[in-house]
């Protein structure tokens, strides 16, 4: 992959992260916000990989995208439902 293509993919990913971050603030349902935040983490993992930090990408994908999303979901189940 050429450098400009990499930069384009990184820019698109970053823009998607910004849009998703704003969307997570605006959505009404708590569960939607949690899933969107998980998507932001997954995009961050892609960005880390594009910036030649594959080990950080692995950590971000497993902790940021998987673990913290599930912990938020469990916390939501524990406080008992919607905002």
């Amino acid at each position, binding site marked *: 992959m050429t450098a400009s293509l990499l930069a384009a993919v*990184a820019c698109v990913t*970053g823009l998607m*992260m*910004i849009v998703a*971050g*704003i969307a997570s*603030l*605006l959505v009404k349902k708590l569960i939607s916000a949690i899933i969107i935040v998980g998507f932001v983490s997954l995009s961050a993992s892609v960005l880390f990989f594009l*910036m030649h930090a*594959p*080990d*950080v990408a*692995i*950590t971000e994908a*497993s*902790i940021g995208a*998987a*673990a913290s999303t*599930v*912990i938020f979901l*469990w916390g939501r*189940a*524990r*406080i*008992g*439902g919607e905002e």
Partner: protein
Amino acid sequence: MIRSITGMIIVLALAAAVFSVIPYNGVTEELHGAGSYYAENGVADTGSINLVTSVVVAYRGLDTLGEVVVLFSASTAVVLILSLVPMGGKPTAPSQIVQTTARILPGAITLFGIYIVTHGHLSPGGGFPGGAVVASAFLLVLLGSRSLPGAAGMLTAVESLAGLAFGLLGFWGVYVMGQFLNSRVLPGGSPGQLISAGIIPLVSLAIGAKVASELSGVFASYRSKGETVEPD
């Protein structure tokens, strides 16, 4: 509404701050100070061809020990708080898809995590990412809501043994070479082989076991106290 707008402004400001920094990270090609030393002498010093691992485990191994201690205190605090707070809400049984996935995938994910840990000195990864991957396999098992009797005790045992192993490996370096976590107390071998780089693979294993058991303990504490729902 005002809260949403304030939040949006904060997010945009943070995004602007982050994305204004990125190009500068991309174009600086020259290394300075410690960075250039690691790049030039890292392989010869530690025998690890993955320079990130040689910095994390060998050169700055003491920092990693501190990091593991921070993780330990955090997980202890989470388990303590969760054991004090009364549980609300009602757990629901997982769907057929989650149950089937949780039956098939954890073995493969665990294997991949162990691969990342044991090849930390050869390919990207090491103790911390590999341990996190193993813990996410454990998380999948918990999501499938299978009860794991005795898991908490075993996790505590693994965590303690791994921490002890990390400390002992460090002080082995003090005893032999007069330097904490010196990787040369074992023969370096030829860089690029699986058995090489002195004690770095062993330290990676200790870090991986400790991180995996600590994160798994945090996950398990969310699901303890008979909250587990048996699949239908």
